[in-house]
């Protein structure tokens, strides 16, 4: 598993995928947080990173499928999957190695944004006037969200040989699991089970962690969500290997 993890990460850095996603993420969040007047902290009036944590999931919806789309689809297309599958590696070695490598890139992308926290911390009218607990919670939320999206991306990448299809399906699934359930629950005739439906979606759990309260229910939700998609990926890999 470690060998796959290492190979994938070095692959991300030689193929520019890692740099491009980091650059895109930091550029867009930077613009939203400091430049665009509608969401800029400087015009916002409060020393908080809310606009960053609100925009980040939507960027992840596009960026994480871009990171994961090639991981299995490309191996299948180039035939290199045959090299991996005939080595003494279990399906879990391959799935987890690739999952952790993509997640590592997601976390690396988040690291530079700590500068935002530091800036707001310094710029507050009373220095340090920022809800640090909520920020820590939000980062944990983002990482959990990232792992959920990564598992979706890996799953769609395992479905076929086409990276574009893997990307498109992953974007749809990420978007739907993130906010689709909220939208469905607002349908009038489903009012009776509205609470249950929003509970299925990622958004509610992400928001709840973002408040700075790490509830075990939310943690279990994210972990089982990720495990479910990793299990599906493993099943697909084990079932049809050519």
């Amino acid at each position: 598993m470690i060998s796959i993890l290492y190979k994938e990460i070095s692959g991300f850095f030689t193929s520019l995928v890692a740099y491009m996603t980091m650059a895109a993420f930091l550029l867009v969040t930077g613009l939203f947080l400091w430049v665009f007047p509608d969401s800029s902290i400087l015009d916002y009036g409060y020393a908080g990173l809310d606009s960053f944590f609100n925009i980040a999931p939507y960027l992840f919806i596009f960026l994480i499928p871009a990171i994961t789309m090639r991981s299995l689809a490309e191996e299948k297309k180039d035939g290199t999957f045959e090299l991996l599958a005939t080595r003494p590696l279990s399906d879990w070695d391959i799935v987890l190695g690739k999952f952790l490598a993509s997640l590592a890139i997601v976390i690396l992308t988040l690291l530079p944004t700590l500068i935002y926290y530091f800036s707001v911390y310094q710029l507050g009218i009373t220095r340090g006037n920022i809800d640090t607990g909520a920020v820590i919670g939000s980062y944990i939320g983002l990482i959990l969200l990232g792992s959920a999206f990564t598992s979706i991306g890996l799953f769609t990448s395992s479905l076929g040989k086409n990276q574009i299809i893997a990307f498109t399906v992953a974007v749809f699934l990420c978007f739907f699991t993130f906010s689709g359930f909220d939208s469905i629950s607002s349908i009038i005739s489903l009012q009776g089970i509205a609470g249950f439906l929003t509970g299925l979606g990622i958004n509610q759990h992400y928001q709840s962690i973002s408040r700075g309260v790490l509830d075990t229910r939310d943690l279990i939700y994210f972990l089982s969500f990720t495990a479910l998609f990793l299990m599906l990926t493993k099943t697909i890999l084990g079932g049809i290997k050519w």
Partner: protein
Amino acid sequence: MSIVVENLSKTYGEQKAINGISFQALPGSVLGFLGPNGAGKSTTMKILTCFIPQTSGTARVCGFDVSTDSMEVRRHIGYLPEHNPLYLEMYVREALGFIGAIHKIDQPEKRINEVIELCGLGDEQNKKLGALSKGYRQRAGLAQAIFADPKVLILDEPTSGLDPNQVIAIRTLIRDLAKTKTVILSTHIMQEVEAICEQVIIINKGKIVADDTLSDLRLKHNNKSLENIFIELTGSHVH
């Protein structure tokens, strides 16, 4: 016996890719796997390397069953797939190091140098795999296959698309490797079989139509050339 195959079948939907084949391969020899396109050569190799499961029958490699002991089988096998897939963005040494990491080999640097020397990759060792010519890519594929020093080597058309000099270099390498290993190779080229194989299996439409040593096979067919024997056994009788 390093490879024992008994009554092996593989069905894709309605189509029988291989149909109840049985054969054995001895250590220290090269087994040539001959047959027209679509005869089931690659399918057999993919089953032996645990890439796809068989529909029925058993296959054992070094005493380990491919369906129940697949991890052990994969530890003992070196496989060069058809079309030689490679991680083109990796460097030669990096790709070999990756194989070393998978097999948890001690002193990988030493082994990398050995294998590079053995496969004649010395001048190309610091290039990316994607920058290599076809002949060197084939050598790199072979280098990956032999890296973990497997007891069994399975090579699917190892010399296809190479120029005559490269073909001879690869054949010499395979013959040297076969002194200590079991080698199964598939090919369309009759001269190749005559040059390096001790045992020949001819397979046609999923069934074995000949399984003999090269000399016995000739003897049984009145010393005809291997090419004629092949056509006789697998052709649709175009006389």
